[in-house]
């Protein structure tokens, strides 16, 4: 069994695609019209055959209370691995990205949490000993 696709809800799929590609640096994998919405996925350029992240419309009524409660408490909905959290923090804040948690050494890893501008918090992590 493998994890091939996981999803997050985004307020606006086009804005989300711009953020996840232009700012975070992922690559568009699928962008297929589906009614009023799109089957829209991105992958890491480091792993083009790796897991896809589905940027799913947030229209379902359960999404807003779910995400509002998580964002209020600062809880990230996804975790992306980076080589160096501090340099990503510098690069992304330079691009106007807001962090709810700056780079923090938690022992086995350095973590930070950013706002993806589409309604979610995302954690960046750089394990000190590569898994």
């Amino acid at each position: 069994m493998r994890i091939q696709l996981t999803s997050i809800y985004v307020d606006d799929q086009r804005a989300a695609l711009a953020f996840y590609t232009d700012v975070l640096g992922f690559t568009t994998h699928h962008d297929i019209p589906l009614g009023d919405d799109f089957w829209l996925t991105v992958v890491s350029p480091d792993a083009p055959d790796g897991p896809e992240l589905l940027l799913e419309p947030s229209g379902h009524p359960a999404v807003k209370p779910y995400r509002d409660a998580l964002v209020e408490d600062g809880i990230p909905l996804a975790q992306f691995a980076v080589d160096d959290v501090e340099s990503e923090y510098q690069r992304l804040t330079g691009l106007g990205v807001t962090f709810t948690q700056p780079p923090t050494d938690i022992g086995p890893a350095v973590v930070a949490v950013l706002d993806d501008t589409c309604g979610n918090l995302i954690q960046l992590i750089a394990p000190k000993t590569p898994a």
Partner: protein
Amino acid sequence: MTDVFRALDDETRRLILDELAARDGQTLFEICTTLTMRHGVGSTRQAISQHLAVLEDAGLVTTERRGRTKLHHFDPTPLDAVARRWPTTGKADP
């Protein structure tokens, strides 16, 4: 209003104040992460949330919203009352 002494009579709550004193303005998630990873505190998020409520009720923690996220701040003001009651210097209180 929770008594400041009762609020401080708990190791986890003192650790929360330590962490907020080190970096002010943290989310519940960040507080839980650092308590677990730095101090080995295994409490649930709900338990930490209740500890924060006690600290807030005692006036030692305040909260503010930044965007959609709630941040916690350490407010040492209630500790002034402790220092006034038992001054640590030999000098008379001003």
